[in-house]
């Protein structure tokens, strides 16, 4: 069980790093979808007392939302905005991947320093959750297209989810549903915003939006 759990966590970490290295937006969306699908298996493996109906529904909900709905919405935004590539990120791809691995290493060190209130199913949970959150942030600040920033936001939320799935086993359900709903609305709104930005300005480069001021 722990081996599969570790395998999924490492997949999540590798997707984080791959996201830092891709310039093609469609690939980024697909990678985020893979990460969402991988994550949806975590609650099934983390539950102590077998797989109940509640956990099953929860996992299915996550799978549909993170693995199908979000990517679907983003793909639609991509089509309507008619962009294919990230343009001139603030940090180029190779350096941002190295930065990502530096973040991962730091988080592994942090993970060995923290005392958690209860033992986790795998020692990789804390470092990879932290790294996913920080890499999501890195994506948001280092990329210029609005779409990649939305993906950064989703990755950040995925990091929080890893943390929640492995730690807060008792009552994760309501909390997670609440967070998911927030993210769902956010991605929905951002998709519409991307569409409007691209229709008004013919691009989704947020850097240029700062020029709009008086």
């Amino acid at each position, binding site marked *: 069980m722990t081996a599969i759990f570790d395998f999924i966590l490492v997949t999540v970490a590798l997707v984080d790093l791959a996201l830092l290295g891709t310039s093609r937006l469609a690939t980024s969306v697909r990678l985020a979808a893979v990460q969402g699908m991988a994550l949806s298996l975590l609650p099934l493996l983390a539950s102590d007392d077998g797989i109940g109906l509640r956990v099953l529904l929860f996992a299915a909900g996550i799978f549909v939302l993170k693995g199908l709905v979000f990517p679907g919405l983003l793909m639609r935004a991509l089509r309507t905005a008619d962009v294919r590539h990230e343009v001139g990120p603030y940090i180029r791809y190779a350096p941002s991947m*190295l930065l990502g*691995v530096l973040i991962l*290493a730091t988080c*592994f060190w942090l993970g060995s320093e923290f005392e958690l209130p209860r033992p986790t199913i795998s020692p*990789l949970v804390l470092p990879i959750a932290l790294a996913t959150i920080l890499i999501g942030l890195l994506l948001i600040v280092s990329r210029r297209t609005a779409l990649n920033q939305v993906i950064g936001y989703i990755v950040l939320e995925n990091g929080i989810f890893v943390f929640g799935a492995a730690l807060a086993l008792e009552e994760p359900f309501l909390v997670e549903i609440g967070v998911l709903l927030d993210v769902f609305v956010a991605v929905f709104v951002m998709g519409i915003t991307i569409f409007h930005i691209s229709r008004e300005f013919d691009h989704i480069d947020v850097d240029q939006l700062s020029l709009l001021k008086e």
Partner: protein
Amino acid sequence: MTVSAIVPPAFALVFAPLLIGVTNRTKAVFAGRQGAPLLQPYFDLVKLLGKGAVYSQTTTLVFRVGPMIGLAAVLTASLLMPFGGCRAPLAFGGDLILFVYLMGLARLFTVLAALDTGSSFEGMGASREVLFSTLAEPALLLALAAVGRETKTLSLSQMHELVPRLFWGHSSLILMLVAVVLFIVFLAENSRIPIDDPNTHLELTMIHEVMVLDHCGPDFAFIIYGAALKLWLLGSLIVGLLLPTRTGLRLADLLLSLAAMAAVAVLLGVVESTLARFRMMRVPVFLVGAVVLATVALILKYGGRLG
């Protein structure tokens, strides 16, 4: 040193060109051609060795010794590489570092010989080769370090003995990452698609091939044979570290490893036939990706206290 220690270098010397033959045949099958005979690389070598060499007047001694030192370095490296359950003739703690830098020495002299000709194309190829190998080298060393961390040894021969036992345990995840990294390094170091194209006819897009344009006759035979040995050695690094079973019978192990080498050669042919070459700008990102994967394999063990 036992008699079986002769086996790894002997196999490398004899079968290395066959590996290229297998890869070329695979590519021919994919392209719908009949393809050259499997032994064609041997015929080429014999033909080239029988010819004379022509040296340009602008070249110096460096150009002449380049191929010889290149081949000598790779031959020495072949003494360090175990194969099919047999230890290498030379095995000591830290020999993996010597192995990596013998490869580096061979490359240095190829590059120097290329620069010595003064041709602009060769200079361009040399510059690219150095850039890409600078990125592939840390990936190889970090991947080997990750395996070394798993097996608690820094000798290739000991790793080769210990790895099959580890494969089905806690280390499988790390070994899978290492496998991917080693295959990327295998592609990059042997100048294969998607990094370089060994069959390209455009000097502008060549990397490795352009550096050896001015060599001919026996010198060129040394270079081709050196490249074949390099392919064999890096391939047997992959097979040696990732073949998860040992039968216990020496002969069966050897045959199994040979079959695995053939499988690697076929896989190489498949990769070369199905992938397009990356744009030059994307190659460094790809190789940095390999470095990143190798680092992940290393730190998974360090921080996570897996297993």
